[in-house]
């Protein structure tokens, strides 16, 4: 196997690590580790304005209807999703999923809730997005908790946010859009000042948690048995918090993976969308490959004509004006743009499939969600949704799963979270779980 450009130099790794306690898994260091111990990654790709869904009597119906015409394992991809044909066995297409409380809202709003499922009918208080739940789960095991990207960057305005990630308090997380800066943040060492501040914060966090553990133990000794069991839950939680802090401290002393700058074209701009989108995807791949982070979210195009991404179709020579204009226009140009976006997603899956992790492909350890929060523009039901990869996380693929009646997307999210060892029973307003995507064993 050729040596990857970013392959770790064992000596620099150890030098940086100091004492190598409970190191998280790194492909470069542990080719022999069993698949179960491999890091699990998640990424989500969003595009706005829905997809072309021509009616039965329209001439474009057969070829340019985003959803296949029949469900189950024998579905046939239309031209809209044809670029994904090679990954058919690594992906599942879903029909009839949506967030219940948003179904009656004007579709564009769903950009804010696509990954959160929050109820924003009365006000725009949002809640945590699924990528951030996963990021929190693994934050201590990687150098940075998550990548939050969008073609436009920043947060935009509420209900047309230019980010799809929201923190635990429901605040929009600013998205990064400049490839060079993203690369530098990922692979160049922090300044001394940043590092010292981070060290201080971690040290004081450790001191506090140590104290609380002692305090709880002494309290525990004075309790009756049933009460001790209750307090044990506090103690276990605190120990886990402590473990995370310890790991975070270890990361500070760890050398960065050496990545060849030339491997990625960082001099791209959204004005050349294809190169730009692929560079952003490559950054995610590289961050996953080096286990720099395990959660990523990328808003490829915003909703409702917001931002530079609205111009992507016209730059590509697709008639109909901006992306939002295209989504209100005839089906054929719109379908072509759907196909274009599918090509980009296929590129991402190609890249993941081409990278080995031991016996497996990086794709097998990565769950990729691709979709929009509207079916056609303004219609917040039947989200176009594809879930790919993550075979080692127990997903079973190869089907178009269509619902008879609209079903909460939260069902799928809860089951996805379980695959990431997050034992949440509910996410937003899910009704249950989505065991249909799990491999039977």
């Amino acid at each position, binding site marked *: 196997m050729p040596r990857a450009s970013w392959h770790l130099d064992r000596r620099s790794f150890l030098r940086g690590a100091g004492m190598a306690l409970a190191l998280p898994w790194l492909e470069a260091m542990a080719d022999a580790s069993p698949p179960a111990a491999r890091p699990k990654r998640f990424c989500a790709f969003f595009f706005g304005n829905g997809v072309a869904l021509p009616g039965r009597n329209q001439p474009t119906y057969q070829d340019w209807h985003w959803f296949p015409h029949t469900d189950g394992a024998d579905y046939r991809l239309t031209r809209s999703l044809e670029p994904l044909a090679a990954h058919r066995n690594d992906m599942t297409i879903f029909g009839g999923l949506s967030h219940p409380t948003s179904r009656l809202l004007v579709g564009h709003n769903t950009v804010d809730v696509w990954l959160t499922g929050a109820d924003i009918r009365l006000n725009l208080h949002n809640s945590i997005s699924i990528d951030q739940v996963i990021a929190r789960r693994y934050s201590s095991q990687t150098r940075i908790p998550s990548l939050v990207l969008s073609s436009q960057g920043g947060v935009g*305005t509420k209900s047309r946010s230019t980010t799809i990630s929201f923190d635990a308090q429901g605040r929009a997380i600013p998205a990064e859009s400049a490839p060079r800066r993203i690369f530098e943040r990922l692979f160049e060492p922090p300044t001394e000042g940043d590092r010292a501040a981070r060290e201080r914060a971690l040290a004081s966090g450790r001191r*506090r948690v140590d104290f609380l553990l002692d305090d709880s133990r002494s309290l525990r000794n004075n309790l009756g048995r049933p009460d001790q069991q209750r307090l044990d839950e506090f103690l276990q939680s605190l120990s886990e918090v402590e473990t995370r802090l310890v790991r975070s401290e270890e990361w500070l002393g760890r050398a960065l993976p050496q990545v060849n700058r030339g491997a990625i074209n960082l001099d791209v701009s959204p004005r050349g969308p294809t190169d730009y989108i692929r560079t952003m995807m490559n950054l995610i791949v590289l961050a996953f490959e080096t286990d720099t982070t395990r959660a990523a979210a990328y808003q490829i195009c915003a909703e409702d004509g917001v931002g530079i991404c609205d111009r992507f179709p016209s730059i590509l020579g697709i008639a109909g004006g901006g992306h939002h204009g295209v989504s209100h226009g005839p089906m054929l140009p719109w379908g072509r743009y759907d196909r274009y976006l599918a090509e980009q997603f296929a590129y991402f899956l190609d890249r993941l499939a081409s990278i080995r992790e031991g016996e497996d492909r990086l794709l097998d350890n990565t769950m990729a969600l691709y979709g929009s929060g509207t079916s056609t523009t303004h219609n917040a039901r039947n989200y176009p949704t594809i879930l790919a990869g993550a075979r080692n996380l127990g997903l079973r693929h190869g089907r178009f799963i269509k619902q008879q009646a609209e079903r909460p997307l939260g069902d799928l999210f809860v089951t996805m979270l379980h695959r990431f060892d997050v034992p949440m029973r509910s996410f937003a307003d899910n009704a249950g779980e989505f065991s249909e995507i799990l491999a039977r064993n």
Partner: protein
Amino acid sequence: MVIVRRLTLTWILAPFALLVVATALCADEPIPYARVAPLFQKYCYSCHGVEMAKGKLRIDKLNPDLVNGKDGDHWREVHDRLNFGDMPPAKAPALNKEDRELMTSWLAQERRKASLAKNQATHFRRLTRTEYERTMQDLLGLAIGFGKRLPEDGKSKDGFRNDGDALRMSPLQYESYLQIADDALAEAIVSGAPPVVHRYRLSVGEKHANFEVTPLPRPADRPGESFEYNAKKGKAFRIWNMSAPNKDKDKDINKVWDPHLAPSAIRRFGEAAVQMPERCYAFGFHQAYRKGEARIKVRVARVAPGEGADATRLPILTLALGSTNFHGVELATIGEPIVIDHTEYRTYEYRVRMENISPPNTGPLNDKNSAVVAAWNSAKAIKGEAKPPRLKIEWIEFENPYFETWPPATHANILFAKGDMAEQAYAREVIRRFAERAYRGPISPGDLDRLAKYWVKARSSTGALEESLRDTLGVVLSSPRFLGLPASRASGAKEHLNDHEIAARLSYFLWSTMPDDALRRLADQRKLREPAAQAAQVRRMIQDPKAWLFIEQFTEQWLELDRLQRVTVSKSSYPGFDEQLAAAMRLETIHFFGEVLRGDLSIFQFLASDFTCVNETLAAHYGINGVAGLKFRKVKLDEAHHRGGVLTHASILTGLSDGRDGHPVKRGTWLLKNLFDETPPPPPPNVPELNRENPKVKNLSIPQALAVHRNTAACMGCHRKIDPWGIAFEEYDAVGNWQRDGVGATLRKRRTSQPIDAKAELPSGVNVDGMQELRKELLRTKSDDFRRAVLRKVMAYALGRSLNLGDIEAADALVPALRERGDRLPALIELIASSEPFLTK
């Protein structure tokens, strides 16, 4: 006026799910073993006895004492077999229905007893989200919605959210506590010079051009420099002058406008878009205020009512803060609306924590992404009113962060004046005072030593004294001693709570927060153990505004008011139903409970009363005249209203409907479970739900459809004991309308031609027809059951745990005392608070 659209009317048959229950038991009189022993002998022993032990089971050897015996699992097996009807086998002598029912009822009764007895009492539990928020607010003096940052708490099987079994802890949750503590202390304890203060005034003029926002200078008596935008006028602010042009068609905004605000309301659209009220004054900042207290002052007057105006109609000032978004604004109303009855200008002041307002997105601010202050006249608009009540606004001022002194009071409350104390002694004293309040009792010298040691370490690694104290107090706010409530002792023996623990238990019971100074003082003086002193405190606490927390949470959780939100009311059947009405329904029941509690009334008012609590929205729904305004008040009911007691509250009737019709099974189950503590068993697995589309029942009325199913043998046993109670509610529709006459009857005619059938034969054999007779029957025969149920529910809430057998017995033992004290609700609270389970751990 109800518009009946006969031709366009579409019938939406909301899914009607009827649970069919196959087991037969609902606790009546306790069944002694002696009554069932011969039955087991007759039907079971021949195969599971001395001569034969099929399946290695000898029922004759099973210990009939399920509480202390060890045969619980075998009995469960016997119970299941009998329930499913696969024992005795077909070839054995048939088991008649009555005998089977008696045996299964006895088993259910004994198994319940055993499960209660084995449930050991736990005392330690973490604070609920609400309790945590209130406690943090009281402890720190910061009115911030801290709880919003925590996940929602679980619910116990009895519906209570303060049940320790449902209050879990996780690493993510613990991290949130650590973070909230840091953020809260950063607000409460300050260091350094006062921050720059943003102070602005929007002046209102008669011409659009006169509307302007100007920075205000620093008042002489207050610290903190004013901030000034260095942007040109108009750049940093956006002004919404939404008063009316003098002539509607006159589009020239530079002409004279009518600066007086006519009544208007926030406008909502189908999406999450909220628009400014049609007539209002507002200004937006290109600056997001995310933290700290804000003070807003509004100078307003009423426009003198002219000739021919209705002088009793008054304008109402409403103020809101919020943010713009892509397509509208998001506004949170601040404080209560104020009725303006004066024609000279007066100033009103509002305070609000910016943390509680949803701020605009971070990032560059612009017209679509800015913070907004808005004021308008929220009096009810009456269509076609020639001279509506109007509001004059002279100006609106905004100031953030607002503080009168520096350091602010929140700081001085914790970091008292140091004087000439040595730093170490001072820090120790600060920590001690804070920890004793946070831990709701004295701190042991050992515990204090450890905290002091922690502070020393923190001090050596930080620059300022304040920072090291924030760090140390952050530990206090993350300790299980703060996050959890009183716990048992290791000895395992039951012991009496000490005075401070009593204070805490009382305070979390009735206020959902920490004890106040008065309770703490009494505890310091060891007076809370005295029954008279304790009773006096209970009475004081009930009248305190903080008791609203008990009133609201207990009522909501006891009577399952959250069902109201889960029902989708059919818009076509009930065009008048909306969110505002639903909110009013919920509040009626809560205010009603408050009235019974604070008005020293009998708990039997819940079953039948000659009053209720309504605001204008609900009064209109009920057809009660003469109620204006959104405030709830007690109103007298007469017979024509067909109301009284919670059974006729629209909140209950709607929550127990399918959105189109009342749901007798839900209503019956609810009545038994919550008012009589006789929870019917859940339907066994594999029993299908009744589909109302089924041709067999499609054309039947609900009682008829129920009867069809009740009469199948498998379901009859239990449904016979549930359905009749619910059928008696049939006089009320899915939104609580009385449907024998009036509006309810009109609406019903559109849904069905079936006559109302509220006749039911209760399990006792007594026949009732409708609510009036049902109530009479409940009062006549079930009053002790009701007393017991309320005592148990309050006990469970007061203890924060699912009751075990001892708790239940203690609650039940209070029945005679309650009767003696006229069944008054405050007396009931006193009895619970002085009961053995409440005072021990």
